[in-house]
């Protein structure tokens, strides 16, 4: 057995003890900082004294309970001086099992920290001047990643090659955490950290490639990436985590490449610094075959490499093609081994000279880490669905026993990932001497389990902690090697990411949904603190946190973030949905009150006795002052209407963007998401941007445009026809459009084959044409019967009824498509997409502008045909053209969103009641308020009843009636006579 690793186990135990007893080991007595780097990701700092470098290192190790000798110039720690991976060539290749003749030898080296880098110490007798020292187990030329300036590093997916996911960190701050920065991208790979830089692999973005980025941990991504390496990926999920060794970072892709990139320097111009498998440059890189052997067991979601681990100079990685590979630091293959099933995503565990990995044949394999030869192999989980066999083994956690054997903890499943039907947790005992794997414990009743569990070794407990979801709810459990299972925390939110352990004291768990908390849980199961994911990268969380004490990095499907500070004390969650809105309203009210107070104070100071009365009088005078000329008064009123209308439009627009059925954002959040979405040109949006830009903005704009269009159309009709009951549908437009739309929806009318039956414009254009045909009929009839306004009304009513009758008959025959047809008839903005918005806006808004030019004539017409004629207006011609214009406008509005009632009837009336019947004011006011009303109505339609679209026409009526009734009572007399 390898004494070095046994010793490292002892170190971990001691370290955990010290971590618990003395959370800040740096405070221990001594002069020189010494780093012990085991060469497998696990490191620790101690302080020691000594006159020479050799003495200091020796003192440090003695302090750690380790044995340190120097024998003829060679350092021996716990009896281990060197290790070699690889052996003579037995024909191993990327597709064939065997060794390749490549070997890697690691030895203990001592380094001294000089001028900002680790320098190898040539002679242990060199005087120690207090400069930090490092003792590290690496091949020649590899230096430790941890430095005195950045004492902690996270170099592989679970921290070290035994996948212990333990962090040692100093907590200093007690201040509540703040979000320092965020960066966007799809983070399915664990965040790595070295030398003050964060390294994150992101999945495919809108450019179609995946990338690895290096971010200055303090400056954040806003300062620009330190470097960025883009690579082709065939997959949405770039789930495997890169690996940092010495001065390089290695990234393995789901397309079967491994690249080596200088850690701080980056890929260089044209990726000139990048090398790949076999040491070849980037341009000559070849992927590993994703398919070598048909296993007839299990399936993977995706192909490619797992996360990598590093131990004693060698890189270990598995591949979905069923191979386990061992590479040296230059990516030369050392050995490979074919298993009997795909291995997937999970990094192998390398511990004490053994490599442990599972495959989708449900077997657990143990092999020698130095040459890949199999030591033991056991069937641990197998399920048969239909004719196929499925199995899967999670990451293996190894703990040595007192009998020279090892306890292996792992979860197992049918290997179907998130769709797994069967899973459980098991403890096996592995005896290297007898080459046996014996099951000691098995439990298939704890519910859904992930692949990652976490070893814990404290005085009170030795075993693993893990998260499982029996039935509903998610709990934290612990299990020891004798099979004692205890539930530690109950009722957590759903968790998919792997747990991490900090200082042997706290577990950090990230909820799958970013709306749920990030937990900090002590080992006794108490939730100590919680944090929540930054709102701008809200999405699903699949990756674990990287905890460096008060600095925490985390990631979601939308990006990564950095927190600084402590997690606030946990309080049981309460439903505080909607709180932001209350805050917003409170803020607005407060602002208004303050503003009023200020105005009051200023006016008071100017000597006005009753300031508010003064304001009121001067305001009324401004609008209604008898001493001003008629025109001046009107100008004032128009200004007032336009300003109020613009403000209301802006407020409603903002409200519509902020509020939705999934979440409520603050206006700042909403606008920043909107602008960033626009800046991105609408591609590659995160979830908030999608919500705002794709689902809320188009329909809000459409509602605004249609509201304007319908109110202007209504206004024009009412003026021409001189009847207060007239609405935009009086000319039969809605019925005609309805018949056409139902023909499309229920009877697959494809406009004589011009459009494909799935065209998004089919219904809209057909409806528009249908509306115009109906208007054409009305006009024909009206002109034949004399062409006066009343002829138009009567013809419109008759034609409308005729089309309605056809519509009713068609509905009766629509069968099971009835509901589809009805939903169109009720009117809704639910189906408006960006592609339609442009058409609606330009047509509706431009056509609405035209009547403004003719406002004076509309006033004349209102006086009656005879009087208007006397004033020199060709009433017939004017009426005809205005009716055509209004009907086209109505058809356009109806075409895209169905029949929306009430707006066109009521808004013009409201404006008349407020401002009198002068169209020079009524028209602009209708434009302002029509849009506002329909935007608010649509807001209610999509949020009023959870998740359901209500008919917007009904909403307009519901919110419009009270206002209308009030004004009718107040101002109804204007309609007398």
């Amino acid at each position, binding site marked *: 057995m390898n004494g070095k690793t046994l010793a490292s186990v002892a170190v971990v135990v001691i370290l955990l003890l010290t971590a618990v007893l003395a959370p800040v080991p740096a405070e221990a007595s001594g002069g020189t900082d010494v780093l012990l780097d085991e060469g497998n990701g696990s490191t620790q700092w101690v302080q020691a004294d000594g006159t020479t470098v050799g003495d200091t290192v020796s003192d440090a190790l003695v302090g750690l309970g380790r044995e340190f000798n120097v024998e003829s110039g060679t350092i021996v720690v716990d009896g281990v001086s060197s290790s070699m991976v690889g052996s003579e060539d037995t024909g191993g290749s990327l597709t064939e099992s065997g060794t390749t003749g490549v070997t890697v030898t690691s030895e203990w080296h001592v380094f001294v920290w000089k001028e900002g880098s680790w320098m190898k110490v040539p002679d242990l007798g060199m005087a120690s001047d207090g400069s930090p020292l490092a003792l590290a187990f690496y091949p020649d030329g590899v230096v430790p990643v941890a430095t005195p300036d950045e004492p902690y590093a996270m170099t592989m997916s679970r921290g070290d090659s035994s996948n212990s996911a333990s962090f040692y960190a100093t907590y200093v701050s007690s201040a509540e955490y703040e979000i320092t920065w965020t960066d966007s991208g799809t983070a399915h790979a664990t965040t790595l950290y070295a030398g003050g830089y964060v390294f994150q692999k992101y999945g495919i973005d809108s450019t179609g490639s995946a990338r690895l980025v290096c971010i200055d941990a303090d400056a954040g991504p806003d300062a620009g990436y330190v470097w960025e390496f883009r690579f082709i990926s065939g997959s949405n999920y770039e789930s495997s985590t890169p690996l940092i060794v010495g001065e390089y970072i290695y990234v393995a892709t789901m397309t079967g490449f491994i690249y080596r990139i200088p850690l701080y320097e980056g890929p260089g111009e044209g990726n000139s610094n990048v090398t790949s498998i076999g040491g070849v440059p980037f341009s000559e890189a070849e992927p590993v075959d994703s398919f070598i052997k048909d296993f007839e067991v299990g399936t993977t979601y995706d192909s490619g490499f797992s996360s990598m681990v590093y131990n004693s100079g060698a890189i270990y990685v598995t591949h979905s093609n069923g191979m386990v590979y061992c590479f040296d630091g230059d990516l030369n293959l050392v050995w490979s081994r074919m298993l009997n099933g795909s291995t997937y995503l999970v990094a192998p565990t390398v511990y004490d000279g053994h490599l442990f990995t599972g495959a989708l044949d449900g077997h657990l394999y143990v092999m020698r880490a130095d040459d890949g030869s199999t030591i033991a192999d056991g069937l641990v989980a197998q399920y048969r669905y239909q004719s196929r066999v499925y199995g899967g083994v999670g990451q293996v956690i190894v703990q040595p026993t007192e009998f020279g054997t090892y306890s292996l903890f792992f979860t197992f499943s049918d290997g179907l990932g998130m769709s797994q039907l069967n899973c459980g947790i098991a403890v096996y005992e592995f005896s290297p001497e007898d080459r046996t794997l014996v099951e000691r414990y098995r439990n298939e009743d704890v519910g859904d389990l992930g692949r990652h569990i976490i070893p814990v070794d404290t005085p009170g407990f030795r075993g693993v902690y893990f998260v499982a979801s029996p039935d509903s709810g998610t709990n934290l459990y612990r299990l020891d090697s004798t099979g004692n299972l205890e539930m530690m925390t109950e009722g957590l939110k759903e968790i998919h990411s792997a747990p991490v352990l900090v200082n042997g004291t706290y577990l950090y768990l990230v909820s799958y949904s970013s709306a749920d908390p990030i937990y900090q849980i002590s080992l006794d199961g108490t939730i100590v603190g919680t944090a929540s994911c930054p709102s701008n990268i809200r999405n699903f969380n699949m990756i674990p946190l990287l905890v460096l004490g008060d600095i925490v990095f985390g990631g979601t499907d939308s990006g990564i973030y950095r927190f600084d500070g402590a997690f606030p004390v946990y309080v049981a969650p309460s439903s505080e949905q909607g709180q932001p809105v209350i805050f917003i309203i409170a803020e607005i009210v407060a602002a208004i009150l303050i503003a009023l107070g200020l105005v009051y104070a200023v006016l008071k100071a100017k000597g006005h006795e009753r300031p508010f009365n003064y304001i009121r009088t001067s305001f009324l005078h401004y609008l209604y002052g008898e001493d001003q000329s008629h025109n001046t008064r009107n100008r004032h009123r128009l200004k007032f209407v336009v300003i109020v209308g613009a403000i209301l439009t802006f407020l409603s627009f903002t409200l519509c963007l902020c509020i939705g059925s999934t979440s409520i954002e603050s206006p700042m959040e909403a606008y920043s998401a909107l602008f960033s979405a626009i800046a991105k040109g609408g591609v590659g949006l995160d979830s908030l941007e999608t919500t705002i830009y794709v689902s809320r903005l188009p329909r809000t704009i459409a509602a605004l445009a249609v509201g304007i269009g319908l109110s202007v159309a209504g206004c024009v009709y009412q003026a021409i026809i001189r009847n207060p009951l007239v609405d935009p549908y009086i000319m039969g437009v809605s019925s005609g459009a309805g018949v056409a739309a139902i023909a499309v929806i229920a009877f697959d009318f494809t406009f004589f084959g011009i459009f494909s039956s799935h065209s998004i414009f089919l219904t809209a254009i057909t409806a528009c044409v249908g509306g115009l045909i109906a208007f054409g009929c009305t006009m024909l009839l009206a002109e034949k019967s004399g062409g006066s306004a009343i002829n138009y009304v009567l013809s419109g009513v008759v034609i409308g009824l005729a089309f309605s009758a056809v519509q009713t008959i068609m509905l009766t025959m629509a069968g099971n498509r009835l509901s589809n047809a009805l939903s169109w008839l009720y009117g809704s903005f*639910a189906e408006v997409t*960006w592609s339609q918005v442009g058409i609606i806006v330009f*047509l509706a808004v431009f056509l609405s502008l035209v009547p403004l030019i003719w406002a004076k004539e509309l006033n004349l017409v209102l006086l009656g045909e005879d009087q208007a004629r006397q004033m020199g207006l060709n009433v017939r011609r004017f009426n005809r053209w205005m009716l055509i214009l209004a009907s086209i406008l109505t058809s356009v509005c109806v075409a895209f969103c169905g029949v929306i009632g009430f707006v066109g009837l009521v808004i013009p009336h409201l404006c008349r009641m407020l401002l009198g019947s002068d169209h020079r004011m009524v028209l602009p006011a209708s434009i302002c308020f029509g849009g506002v009303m329909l935007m608010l109505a649509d807001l209610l339609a999509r949020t009023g009843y959870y998740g359901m679209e209500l008919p917007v026409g009904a909403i307009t009526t519901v919110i419009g009636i009270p206002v209308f009734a009030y004004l009718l009572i107040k101002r109804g007399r204007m309609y007398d006579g």
Partner: protein
Amino acid sequence: MEDRSRVTLSIAIVLAGIILAIAVGSLITEAETDQAKGTVIDYGDRDTLWTEAEISEYGTTLELLEYACVSNSLTLTLSEDGSVSELGGVGNADGSEWGLWVIYPGSIEWVQLDAPYTQDPSEFTITSWSYVAEGEEPTVAVDYSGNPIYGYQQKLRVVSLSPSITEILGSIKAENIIVGVDSYSDHPQFVVDAARSGEIATVGTYTSPSFELIMGTNPDVVFADSSQRSHSIMTEQLRSSGVDAVLLYPGEDLESIMDNIFIVGTVINYELAAEEVIDETYEVIDTLAGHVFTPEAGGKVDLMISLEPDISPWVSGSGTYLSSIAGLFNSTNVFSEWGGWVHVTSDRIPYANPDMIIIVTSEYSATQAEYDYLYANLPAQWKDTDAWRNGEVYVICESAADMVQRFGPRTAQVAELVAMILHPNAFDIDVPKIIGDGYEQYLNYSSYMGYY
């Protein structure tokens, strides 16, 4: 301003609006159906093999086929005229032969192309080398919107917009990957519980799904039902936002339901489970038919299927799910001259004179008292039928009524229920006149399928 210039200005504004709208409209190219990156080898009966390939590298459809054969180690023999005579060990035989079938962009119809196979494969949405019997068509390869069903990545987050799709996902044991359902989805129970506890999001109703709620679940794929217009539009919206969406066929008959199960299974890579459900369904139906088409079972039944026992009821014409299932078991729909559900005039009922009436209703509960009341109070026109005179009026209510109206994977159960009612003599079971929540206890042949 002069009138003339105002007229000009008005016209200018109108024209500007129209031109801008047209300009914007023409800028937007409608979402085109995707080109499948590969080709299908279809042995018939939904036994297909998908081969991924970069289409542009293959100049002709034959080259693409040759690549597919090489990468799957399949044999390929061409006859003298260039047509395929043998593929993967299956040779042309009586009535069935290999052929190239394609679907053109914007269409969902199969078109057979003849040898020589020099067509450019990039002209089609999908190409399928199919072993097809005379007069039949290959296995479905595009969804209802014309998008290929092959070549999707593994899906881990699935949203279902209809109850029948939710049932399909349940039947192929994919319920754990559902992250969102419509509010009408009430089966299987797991989904109901998960939706109640919030683990599965509700993304709107069946008739009006909410884009925002769907996007909120961050789905990998969304399954929609083409019988709802809102679903077709939602499919387009989702695709334009980069979310995979699959539009299933209207499940009007057994074949299209099985196609839908096949599509769902193929898209989320649960082909095996889907195949199992489909095979078992056919097995059950064959077994039932074996019982039904015997002398003891009695002859053909003239059947009326109605919703509610009204004077002038809505009845099933041809082309409804229930009617097509009943049609499998030696029965004739007396109203088959109409399509879909029709509101029939009352005097048509005695005129049609059905032997049997099945009322599918949610208004009644399954007790004898309720049945007796209903039976006694049926309108006079109904009583003037052989069905009433012989006491052959059956009521399907409660959850059984939900099931028979839902074109999902419980087709085998529906088939057994209907077959039992139509031909009670063929089955050794006493069929009650009113069947509700306890319908499972009467099922025998389909009960082993285990997802009802």
